[in-house]
């Protein structure tokens, strides 16, 4: 089955025996849980759109392993065009779902590992790349969703992994066996974790020799024995349990994050892609992070939805002809397209690595993500400015439906006379959803911290710009001798 559709994907998830906890209780039916379900719908969309002629040019690719048509989320980039199409796919999906669709992180992990495993083999004569390509073929042939898991709890940030008071603050090997290894630790903030078939583990920071037990990378089925998922809360999440649907904002899609605990989990050798090669941990982190910083083209897609919603509410409020409203919407578009520029630029300036995988321009990928840590907040601020305070003082859908007070809401919360109060409420709830509700996790805070917090990009930018050349030209142009 080289490419699943949405139904096949959903059916495949039902076969997993995940151990998921939420609100202190085990979730027995993960796929149908009303809080988790919208996030499953968003991943399912990545399968469905791959079968639609109007999207397939971005959503599919040709496998370099088998030559078959595959979902782009399981592809190893083979050209600059592949990198550009990845950026475009992210924007497309964000613009169709209005949320995080979760599947990019696994794609980025796989592409980073395709390079790092190759480079470790060249240095040490190991066989990680062969193992990894076998895993990739399995992923492609079964069209799997993979969680790329990097972020460890990290404990005391001033201490290296081996110096932590609790040695489990970074994922580590606790036992080596003839047939594999046993690992212990946790990965935080795992986007789409319970919608994934496989989980790919990577180290979270550069390491020294003393940290070698922590320099590990591997992949496991998401329901492997000993893996436990604890769902993260999102602002307004329990609105999904209410009878009405208006107050959810986004009626169809959503995202999720989870803490994933590895309670002494066995990993067979054929699934181990890095084992104590501490000197390659930093490279893997940097390569994954750079790809993932490119992936934030998706926020331009979510921005498309928010801008559309803002234009609508301006019209519903009768304010759309005001010059300052028009100007603010222009500013939102300007910021949004600037986000897209960064992702396209780092892809268009990509290059071929020795493994054959194409890799983004890392300076531009960091610039892209640095913009993403800021611009969605400004776009959200402008959306809230135009939407008005009603977005946060609006009574509930139950009040609108109430035989006692519904008529008052309908009367006093009508804006433009040709738009119903319910229509206006729906649009306000969507803006609320993206700027401060469940989708704000993806649109705002994930934009801030996902793929590395702002300072991580600033460090990379400072390392990668060629300051000597800039200084030399400046000196030459102002006549300083010896430049």
């Amino acid at each position, binding site marked *: 089955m080289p490419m699943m559709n949405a139904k096949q994907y959903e059916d495949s998830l039902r076969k997993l025996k995940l151990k998921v906890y939420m609100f202190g209780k085990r979730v027995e039916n993960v796929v149908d849980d009303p809080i988790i379900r919208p996030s499953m719908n968003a991943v399912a969309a990545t399968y469905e759109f791959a079968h639609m002629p*109007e*999207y*397939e040019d971005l*959503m599919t690719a040709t496998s370099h392993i088998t030559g078959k048509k595959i979902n782009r989320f399981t592809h190893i980039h083979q050209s600059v065009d592949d990198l550009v*199409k990845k950026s*475009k*796919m992210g924007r497309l999906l964000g*613009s169709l779902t209005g949320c995080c669709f979760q599947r990019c992180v696994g794609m980025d992990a796989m592409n980073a590992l395709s390079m790092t495993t190759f480079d470790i083999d060249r240095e040490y004569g190991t066989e990680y790349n062969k193992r990894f390509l076998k895993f990739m073929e399995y992923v492609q042939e079964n069209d799997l969703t993979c969680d790329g898991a990097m972020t460890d709890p990290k404990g005391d940030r001033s201490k290296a992994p081996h110096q932590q008071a609790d040695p489990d603050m970074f994922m580590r090997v606790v036992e080596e066996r003839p047939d594999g290894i046993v690992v212990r630790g946790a990965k935080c903030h795992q986007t789409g974790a319970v919608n994934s078939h496989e989980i790919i583990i990577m180290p979270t920071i550069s390491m020294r020799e003393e940290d070698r037990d922590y320099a590990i990378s591997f992949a496991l089925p998401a329901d492997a024995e000993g893996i436990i998922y604890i769902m993260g809360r999102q602002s307004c999440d329990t609105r999904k349990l209410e009878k009405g649907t208006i107050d959810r904002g986004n009626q169809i899609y959503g995202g999720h994050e989870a803490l994933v605990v590895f309670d002494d989990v066995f990993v067979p050798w054929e699934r181990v892609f890095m084992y104590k090669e501490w000197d390659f941990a930093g490279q893997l982190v940097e390569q994954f992070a750079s790809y993932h910083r490119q992936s934030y083209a998706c926020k331009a897609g979510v921005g498309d939805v928010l801008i559309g919603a803002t234009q609508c509410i301006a019209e519903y409020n009768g304010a759309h002809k005001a010059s300052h409203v028009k100007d603010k919407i222009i500013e939102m578009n300007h910021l949004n397209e600037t986000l897209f520029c960064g992702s396209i630029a780092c892809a268009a300036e990509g290059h071929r690595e020795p493994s054959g995988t194409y890799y983004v321009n890392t300076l531009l990928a960091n610039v892209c993500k640095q913009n993403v840590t800021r611009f969605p907040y400004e776009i959200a601020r402008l959306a809230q400015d135009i939407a008005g305070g009603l977005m946060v003082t609006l009574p509930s859908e139950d009040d609108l439906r109430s035989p006692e007070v519904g008529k008052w809401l309908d009367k006093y919360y009508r804006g433009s006379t040709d738009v119903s109060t319910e229509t206006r409420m729906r649009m306000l709830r969507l803006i609320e959803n993206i700027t401060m509700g469940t989708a704000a996790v993806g649109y705002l805070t994930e934009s801030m911290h996902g793929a590395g917090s702002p300072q991580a990009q600033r460090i990379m930018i400072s390392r990668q710009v060629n300051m000597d050349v800039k200084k030399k030209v400046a000196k030459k142009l102002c006549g300083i001798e010896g430049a």
Partner: protein
Amino acid sequence: MKKIRSIGLKYCGGCNPRYDRAEAVRRIREELGGTVRFAPPDDPDVDSILAIMGCETACADLNAFSGKKIWIITSRKEADNWVAERKKAL
């Protein structure tokens, strides 16, 4: 009786389209109904391709269709013009 021409329909991925591509195709189908049959682009019976691109970048990969007649549409206006040309050619 005139033979109905089969044309392969190929879209770009639609990341940031400047017009509604699906709506443009719907209008084309409506205008040319009964004179053209649109098929998947890899259909062996098609000898020509109508490529619906969301913007002038026109990034869809058309390499697989070399040797075939390819029309590229990048705007609603171009879609209308193409329909007018097809009607004239009938």
